């Protein structure tokens, strides 16, 4: 029991560190990205990584509150990605 629980806690710490590093790396692509498509993609990846971090926080705290937060951030990320791409494609969001 204790070995498995220790392994799970270490995996959680590892997951937090690696997903945070992934967030920083996608921020690097957001800054250096030469085209607009790269910047939209980097913002989308940052939203997805933020969802991952919130899910990990919910696992660690054992709380069910973070479910709604994750769902709302997922919807917000999708709508903002589509709105940004639509603005580049058509010059307008709602025609």
């Amino acid at each position: 029991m204790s070995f498995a629980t220790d392994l799970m806690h270490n995996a959680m710490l590892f997951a937090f560190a690696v997903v945070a590093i992934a967030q920083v790396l996608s921020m690097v692509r957001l800054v250096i990205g030469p085209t607009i498509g790269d910047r939209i993609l980097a913002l989308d990846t940052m939203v997805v990584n933020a969802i991952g971090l919130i899910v990990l926080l919910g696992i660690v705290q054992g709380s069910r509150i973070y479910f709604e937060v994750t769902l709302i951030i997922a919807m917000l990320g999708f709508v903002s990605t589509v709105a940004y791409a639509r603005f580049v494609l058509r010059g307008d969001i709602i025609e």
Partner: protein
Amino acid sequence: MSLEIIGTYAITVCLIIGTAFAMIGTIGLLKFNDPMVRLHAPTKVGTIGIGALLLASMIHSYVFSDGSMHELLIMAFLFVTSPISANFISKVNIHRRNCDVPPVPPQDEAWSTLDVPEDEVEVAPAK
């Protein structure tokens, strides 16, 4: 070996799979050298990476408390919306001509993705 220990190991495996996909996708976003190629890697983060993390959350809630299936909702939403946003970003790449432009269509003047709105055509008729 009780059910709780098996569940704990399953949580560990799911966490490591999800974390590995998140990291590999972001490294692909950073290291590939073409906008359309770069689109390929991070779309896997949204489906398999977050899917495995949400599976770990579901197993955790079933092992250590009375369980919940709410995470399936987030998983379904991400699985549906991830290809749509990838399609929109690739259309942006075609529209900005950051990749190979598709061949001329057989009957119309241009592809709708490459076309500009009509009021902008009147302002700039050179195109």
